């Protein structure tokens, strides 16, 4: 069936090339049928890519090792779930997933918006197609998943650390995020090419951007939890280039989601928004490049991967063409109004944008610095954790504070007296929290204390906004308090969904500050029967167990845990020895306290043949708030994402008022 896969990819390449050329010609010449034909080509490209994907998935599930990709990424004994995840585990498969999601999103976005933005859609299609041409070309000519070989008896298997349930969801979510950012990019560039940079491209892409941003956010949190439980170094985020690859477009998209509100409310920041969308998309390409080119595994050359130079060329071309189009359309992007006061909601959003962008570019510099230093000095210099942590504090803490300030200031301008009235309770709450924490001993870490204090401020503003809004809705005739609350959410999902997302960021900040600024660590080499202490905990090494599973031997150290006189049960930590892959993986032991959110985290650094184990143990206060923040983040995003029928009606009505015909 590899022939079918190859043919399907060739068909996809032909279709997207046609969509690019015919779409651009149709839009430029004003030819309706040609433009519609290009739209159909984009939709058909999704289905042909789906056929190629089905062929690869079928080969994986059949363990057909005559497919080089299948033999390289799986083995006969690999559990079915991980066999499926091998689809995106290797370079060729993940590129195929990119193309599948891209053509799927393109087809859906075009279909969903053609009723009221048809004049934009005709230019959006060739932009989508241009991106798809690049990925289809890579899959056809450079990195095909359908290369065949004489089938070996068994495959090479999957890297043990990837054999984890998180790997079933983490990479696809990141890809949904990366590819999702193509939608705002295509609509933005399409609107510029069409010469219609009005609000419609923002409205058409608002939910797509939010969806991509949510997927990237959740994907990163799942990745962090995977690193926490699987990689076994005691943390959840190491500022690794691949982790940063997902964080950078997320930060740029966060900035865009805020500044787009300023354009919608005040009609300003139009050039800024366009640039942010281009940046977010370029960073999503850069993220895919970092993850897939192999350049981060060894920064010495691009020879490790054949797709690296292609990606760099495409990113450079994307940025150059996009900026040229922006420059060409600058006269159309001029704002008719201006920032009236530095103390206003739009100004707060602008400060938030500047800080987000500064953090994003700082991280980008940290990622590319080893490449630049190697090119210039012949020696790769890697910027370590201290660099990133420093800038996270410098930019992140003011960002946290602004999250509480922005939503409570009036648009246009706010008076000093009004600021005092508005912020007195949140400031008092923050100061009281800071003072209480100082008394309780949290002063050992100044950034941690500041983060807690700012978090209290933001939490107070969110609670205040919900309380005031619910009270107002009750006064406006809601039959009960719960009705008033849900009516508040339903009438302005974007705003109050945004507050819920802010609450999740507060939980995240508190979790990060607690687990990184106030954690405790200890290590010891123990024989069975010996004990060690860390924080309030006492751990006694009882015995070493060994058991066999379908594809690995599990070695586990049993630890009896107690705190003071209280027995807290047994904790297991150890290693897995994978038979086919001939590799070891760390399997950490974690005991979570549901009341305090604290984790006791045990790593077996080394297990000697005589049963002696070298343990490394951490106590991580409040770390579980980070994972709870993920759930709150999803909830807030869903509230904001929920379709608003009134808004759709308003847009269709507006289209009718101009006299644009409905599309069939």
């Amino acid at each position, binding site marked *: 069936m*590899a*022939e*079918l896969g190859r*043919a*399907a990819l060739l*068909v996809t390449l*032909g*279709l997207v090339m*046609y969509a690019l050329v015919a779409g651009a010609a149709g*839009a430029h010449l*004003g*030819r*309706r*049928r*040609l*433009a*519609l*034909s290009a739209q*159909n*080509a984009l*939709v*058909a490209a999704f*289905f*042909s890519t789906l*056929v190629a994907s089905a062929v690869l998935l079928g080969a994986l599930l059949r363990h057909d090792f005559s497919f080089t990709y299948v033999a390289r990424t799986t083995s006969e004994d690999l559990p079915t779930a991980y066999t499926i995840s091998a689809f995106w585990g290797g370079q060729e498969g993940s590129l195929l997933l990119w193309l599948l999601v891209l053509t799927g999103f393109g087809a859906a976005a075009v279909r969903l918006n053609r009723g009221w933005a048809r*004049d934009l859609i*005709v230019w959006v299609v060739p932009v989508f197609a241009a991106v798809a041409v690049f990925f289809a070309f890579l899959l056809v000519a450079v990195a095909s998943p359908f290369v065949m070989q004489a089938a070996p008896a068994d495959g090479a298997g999957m890297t043990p650390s990837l054999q984890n349930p998180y790997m079933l969801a983490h990479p696809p979510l990141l890809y949904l995020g990366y590819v999702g950012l193509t939608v705002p990019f295509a609509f933005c560039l399409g609107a510029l090419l069409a010469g*219609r940079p*009005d*609000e419609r491209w923002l409205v058409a892409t608002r939910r797509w951007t939010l969806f991509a941003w949510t997927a990237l956010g959740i994907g990163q949190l799942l990745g962090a939890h995977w690193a926490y439980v699987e990689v076994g170094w005691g943390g959840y985020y190491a500022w690794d280039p691949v982790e940063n690859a997902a964080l950078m477009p997320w930060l740029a998209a966060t900035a865009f989601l805020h500044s787009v509100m300023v354009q*919608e*409310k*005040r*009609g300003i920041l139009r050039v800024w928004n366009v640039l942010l969308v281009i940046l977010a998309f370029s960073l999503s390409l850069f993220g895919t490049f970092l993850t897939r080119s192999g350049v981060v595994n060894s920064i010495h050359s691009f020879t490790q991967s054949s797709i690296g130079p292609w990606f760099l060329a495409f990113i450079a071309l994307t940025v150059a063409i996009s900026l040229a189009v922006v420059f060409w359309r600058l006269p159309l992007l001029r704002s008719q109004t201006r920032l009236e006061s530095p103390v206003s909601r739009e100004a707060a959003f602008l400060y938030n944008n500047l800080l987000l962008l500064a953090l994003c570019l700082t991280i980008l510099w940290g990622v590319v610095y080893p490449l630049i230093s190697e090119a210039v000095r012949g020696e790769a210099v890697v910027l370590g954790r201290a660099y990133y942590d420093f800038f996270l504090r410098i930019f992140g803490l003011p960002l946290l504070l602004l999250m509480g300030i922005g939503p*409570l200031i*009036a*648009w*246009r*301008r*706010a*008076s000093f*007296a*009004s600021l005092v*009235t*508005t912020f007195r309770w949140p400031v008092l709450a923050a100061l009281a929290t800071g003072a209480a924490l100082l008394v309780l001993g949290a002063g050992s870490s100044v950034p941690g204390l500041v983060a807690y204090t700012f978090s209290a401020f933001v939490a107070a503003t969110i609670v205040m*906004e919900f309380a*005031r*809004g619910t*009270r*107002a809705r009750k*006064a406006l005739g809601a039959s009960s308090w719960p009705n008033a609350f849900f009516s508040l959410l339903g009438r302005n999902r974007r705003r109050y969904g945004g507050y819920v997302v802010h609450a999740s960021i507060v939980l995240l900040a508190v979790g990060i500050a607690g687990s990184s600024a106030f954690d405790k660590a200890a290590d010891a080499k123990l024989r069975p029967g010996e004990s060690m202490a860390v924080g309030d905990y006492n751990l006694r090494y009882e015995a070493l167990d060994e058991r066999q599973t379908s594809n690995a031997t599990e070695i586990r150290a049993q630890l009896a845990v107690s705190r003071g006189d209280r027995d807290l049960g047994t904790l297991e930590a150890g290693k897995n020895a994978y038979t086919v892959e001939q590799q070891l993986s760390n399997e950490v032991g974690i005991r979570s306290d549901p009341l305090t959110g604290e984790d006791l985290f045990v790593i077996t650094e080394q297990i000697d043949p005589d049963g002696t184990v070298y343990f490394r143990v951490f106590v991580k206060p409040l770390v579980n708030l980070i994972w709870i923040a993920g759930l709150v983040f999803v909830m807030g995003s869903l509230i904001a994402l929920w379709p608003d029928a009134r808004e759709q009606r*308003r847009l269709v*009505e*507006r289209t*009718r*008022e*101009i*006299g*644009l*015909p409905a599309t069939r």
Partner: protein
Amino acid sequence: MALVLAAILAVACVVAVALPFIREPEPESDSLHELDEDERRRLELLEARDRSLAALKELEFDHRTGTISDEDYRALVGPLRREAATALRALDGEGRPTGERT
């Protein structure tokens, strides 16, 4: 078998792409509807109208909740009302129906 399936796929895709030409071999008009200057101006006015009305609605609610003080409300409501009125007058002045909102 694989090659037959591939051929079917290719033919189906070609038909899908050619569909607009098959459905309308000789259309009355094959031109895309382009916004003229009047329509573009009208779109801008409609956006300005909707922006002002949405801002007014938000301001009223924020004032009711207490997020916006009386002083700020008084300073902001006037210009917003004027902007909305300007957009509505300009839309009326163009002599076309402007929908239920107006």
